[in-house]
């Protein structure tokens, strides 16, 4: 299911990059009239990789995933914050570029980047073979908690081992490694996976939680940090203890396939620096605090 989706996404991006090429072929005229303007900003830069460091970087994310990226209201003003956003800001700052955010469904992020509508993607997105085929990943910038299963507190004692999910409806976010844990079939990305679970795959984490609370599904697999957040905020829910779902999550920064703009070395440099001086940890703590304050 996931592969099919990816394939479609790739096919779409392939078709569209063609039209992008023709659009760029018109030359880099001033974009006075939008209707005939060739690709602006990001794409124009990507067409000229030799040019000096970019002055503007467009960063794609899917801001419905606290504490990584989410919307808050700061004195009534809508802002996208989170630890991925802090990282993006640091990357832009190190390159001396201005940062612009594109907020989009998680599924569409890599398509968007393939079209040149953003320069890099940070969305708690881990490396998988499919993603590596569509884009290039940086070094991991964070060691997330391993994925966890959230269930209703009342049913907590039914789940002791991974086999207990056989025959159950288990939810996960479409196109993520959590989905692979539920569906199985990709030993490389998800060596530890459920067998015989009935996958419920949705785009939106909040919708998954609703399905759980209203007994449409029995369990939801989430990134560890996210699972803990939802269990904290909703007294009906709990994290299943003692079920090992594999290695820690290692999210990366993603750039377009082949890194046409040559951003990766600088990004990796920034990541190494932030990891060494503990800034990444600080980012996470700040994001956590912002998210916890979401209701107050």
């Amino acid at each position, binding site marked *: 299911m996931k592969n099919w989706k990816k394939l479609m996404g790739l096919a*779409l991006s392939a*078709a*569209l990059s063609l*039209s*992008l090429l*023709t*659009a760029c072929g018109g030359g880099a005229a001033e*974009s006075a009239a*939008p*209707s*005939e*303007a*060739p*690709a*602006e900003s990001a*794409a124009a830069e990507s067409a000229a990789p030799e040019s000096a460091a970019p002055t503007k970087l467009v960063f794609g994310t899917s*801001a*419905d*995933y*606290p504490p990584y990226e*989410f*919307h*808050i*209201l700061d004195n*009534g003003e*809508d802002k996208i914050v989170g630890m991925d956003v802090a990282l993006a800001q640091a990357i832009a700052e190190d390159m001396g570029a201005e940062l*612009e955010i*594109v*907020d*989009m*469904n998680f599924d*569409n992020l890599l*398509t968007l980047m393939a*079209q040149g*509508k953003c320069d890099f993607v940070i969305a708690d997105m881990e490396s998988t073979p499919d993603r590596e085929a569509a884009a290039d990943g940086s070094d991991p910038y964070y060691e997330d908690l391993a994925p966890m299963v959230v269930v209703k507190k009342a049913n907590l004692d039914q789940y002791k081992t991974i086999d207990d999910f056989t025959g159950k409806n288990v939810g996960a976010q479409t196109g993520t490694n959590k989905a692979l844990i539920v569906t199985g079939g990709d030993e490389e990305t998800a060596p530890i996976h459920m067998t015989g679970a009935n996958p419920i795959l949705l*785009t*939106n*984490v*909040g*919708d998954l*939680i*609703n399905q759980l*609370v*209203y007994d449409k599904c029995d369990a939801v697999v989430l990134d560890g940090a996210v699972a803990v*957040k*939802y269990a904290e*905020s*909703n*007294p*009906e829910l709990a994290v299943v203890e003692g079920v090992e779902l594999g290695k820690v999550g290692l999210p990366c920064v993603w750039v377009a396939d082949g890194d046409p703009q040559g951003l990766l070395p600088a990004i990796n440099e920034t990541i190494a620096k932030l990891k060494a001086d503990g800034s990444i940890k600080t980012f996470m703590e700040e994001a956590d605090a912002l*998210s916890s304050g*979401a*209701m107050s």
Partner: protein
Amino acid sequence: MFDAIAAWYEGLSPASFFNFHFLPKYAVYFIQGVEYTLLLAVVSVLLAVLPALLLALMRMSKNRPIRWVSGAYVSVIRSTPLLVQLSIIFFGVFNAIRIPAIKVFGFVDLSYFIPGVVALAMNSSAYVAEIFRAGILAVDGGQMEAARSLGLPKGKAMQLVVLPQAIKNILPALANEVVTMVKESSICMVLGMQDLMWGAKTAAASSFVTLGPYVLAALIYFAINFPAGKAIEVIERRMRRGDQR
């Protein structure tokens, strides 16, 4: 009594239908969301009017290829899901045509809004074309004959005699199309357009209150569309009363 209700409300689960704890903090997402939704609906239907009229007239043309082109367009649009059309327009057409990310009214990003509005208008034009066609066909055929027998060419007869009468049949249906678009445009949220449904999703994600925002969105959609629908009915009835040759 009041205290008991307050305590019940305070203790609601984050996934309860009645949990509106995300208010008033996230109200601004809903206010801007409503504005965005209405803007999408009204602008897309207005944009659809001219192409729809053209499609309707093409559909009634004597020339078979012209009739076929219009019929094919209407059939394709009516037989494919809006979400698919939206994705093709957004990632396809507006990949070749780049709209700069300019914000109007402080929260409407044109690089999202314009592709959304164009996709909705293309979709709507197929339906509005049928509204026009039905409205024109509902005008007595003798009107066209009378105008033509006075020597008026077909275009003038249509413009001066038939269309002004068809408008009466068309306007209420057109207003209904706006109401439909208010609902249908919610699909644009999937591509990041910040309409009412997007506001609900974002409030749900950030506040961990996962159902209440959607209930509120539903209430707002209803509060817009139900009175609008009723008003259209009243106007329609009044117009029909004066409908005599």
